[in-house]
């Protein structure tokens, strides 16, 4: 079966959805991403949907599922490049994509992921410092 490619860049996985996906292809992407996050220990997932002409409830559910599973596996998800017409339509469909972070484009999405990774690194090192003080 046809599959959407997933690129690895450092701690991040990057997916660009460029085809009008039928439902099974979308489900395959969801499975592949989940598997790859855990296999590579990725800390962030960026999904670029700038070439997607629609997001219906099925694709919306897939995007929410990916972000939810990524969170369980300790990775952040950011969705980039959603076309304004798609965003307007999503709201009318009644889908708010809860818990999904969005960015205008890939560049901003990457900095969002980097920033949140740096933040969590800081938090970890502060914990380490605290622990050493207590000793």
């Amino acid at each position, binding site marked *: 079966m046809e599959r959407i490619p997933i690129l690895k860049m450092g701690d991040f996985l990057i997916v660009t959805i460029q085809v*009008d996906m*039928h439902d099974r292809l979308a489900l395959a992407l969801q499975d592949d991403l989940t598997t790859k996050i855990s296999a590579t220990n990725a800390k962030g997932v960026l999904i670029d949907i700038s070439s997607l002409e629609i997001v*219906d*409830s*099925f694709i919306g559910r897939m995007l929410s599922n990916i972000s939810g599973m990524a969170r369980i596996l300790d990775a952040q998800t950011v969705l980039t490049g959603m076309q304004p017409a798609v965003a307007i*339509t999503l709201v009318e469909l009644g889908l708010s994509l809860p818990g999904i972070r969005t960015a205008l484009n890939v560049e901003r999405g990457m900095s969002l992921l980097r920033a949140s990774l740096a933040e969590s690194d800081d938090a970890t090192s502060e914990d380490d410092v605290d622990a050493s003080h207590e000793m």
Partner: protein
Amino acid sequence: MPLTKCETLAIRAEADVVLVRQAVRKLAIEQGFGLVEQTKIVTAASEIARNTLDYGGGGEAVLECHTDGIRKGLRLVFSDQGPGIKDIGQAMRDGFTTGGGLGHGLGGAKRLVEEFDIVSAPGSGTRVTLVRWK
């Protein structure tokens, strides 16, 4: 309202849902719909085509271009001979699903078009009509 163009597409597999989306997009462009209008009618068609396949066991979509004076519009009729819907009010409600979906297909499609009609009864299949004007 005079009919200017009509095509019928079978909905038997997931790939057909994609074909319906593409055909509706093409007609919406031909009718002069703006990008947001196109996106709305294509998204509504995608929701209903998927229901025709998943719950209706397959069926067909009739895509019609209409001209009413200077108004141009699209009328899309999805029909299947599946199990039908017992309680349409319940099925229309956001969040109601019997198939593990989000339950926003019917309600969402209705909000995305200007005219929405659903005819369904247990044992006699389902027919959903969507109309959007430019």
